């Protein structure tokens, strides 16, 4: 059973397009995250939701919009894709309090913008 699953695994698209990445967790966790790993291998947090409520919103362009229909899902929609958006995007989840529940990550979505 996959604990945190995200789709698609690979996404190749052209500049200017709009795309979505879906994420679902079956761990019963309250908090979900989106992380971005860029070409320099930095893993940086983008957003965090707790029980469908946005709690962390890093300085991410507003072309990126997370949507949490329920606490088991956190989708990422990206408008007007740019070359610099090419990266691997990881979804993760945890219980509230990382001390008690370290992040569980999905396997990533490799986004390539041409």
């Amino acid at each position: 059973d996959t604990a945190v699953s995200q789709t698609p695994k690979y996404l190749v698209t052209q500049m200017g397009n709009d795309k979505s990445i879906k994420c679902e967790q079956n761990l019963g966790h309250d908090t979900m995250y989106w992380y971005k790993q860029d070409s320099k291998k930095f893993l940086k947090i983008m957003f965090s939701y707790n029980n469908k409520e946005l709690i962390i919103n890093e300085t991410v362009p507003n072309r990126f919009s997370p949507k949490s229909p329920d606490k088991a899902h956190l989708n990422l929609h990206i408008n007007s894709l740019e070359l610099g958006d090419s990266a691997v995007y990881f979804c993760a989840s945890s219980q509230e309090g990382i001390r008690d529940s370290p992040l569980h990550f999905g396997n990533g979505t490799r986004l390539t913008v041409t």
Partner: protein
Amino acid sequence: DQQVKQNSPSLSVQEGRISILNCDYTNSMFDYFLWYKKYPAEGPTFLISISSIKDKNEDGRFTVFLNKSAKHLSLHIVPSQPGDSAVYFCAAINTGFQKLVFGTGTRLLVSP
């Protein structure tokens, strides 16, 4: 502003020997530290953690050491096994803010 640094991008070790992966941080407000392991085409998986009130935590072959005065932590793997070959990420958090900050990772290669 890179608050968590892993200055060695790669490390090669022979099977059976000790692997030592290092991590430095700059933010003195961090109070909890974690190591994650990542295989290709997979997400990072949690390995071991340590609270800032401790200086050592051990779990089987894995031990994490924390030197708060030097703002330095290290992960020791002994004995190293070929299956340990992966990228290891150090991460730190101020648990009041719940924002985990990662280093850039160290690729460990354990050869038979």
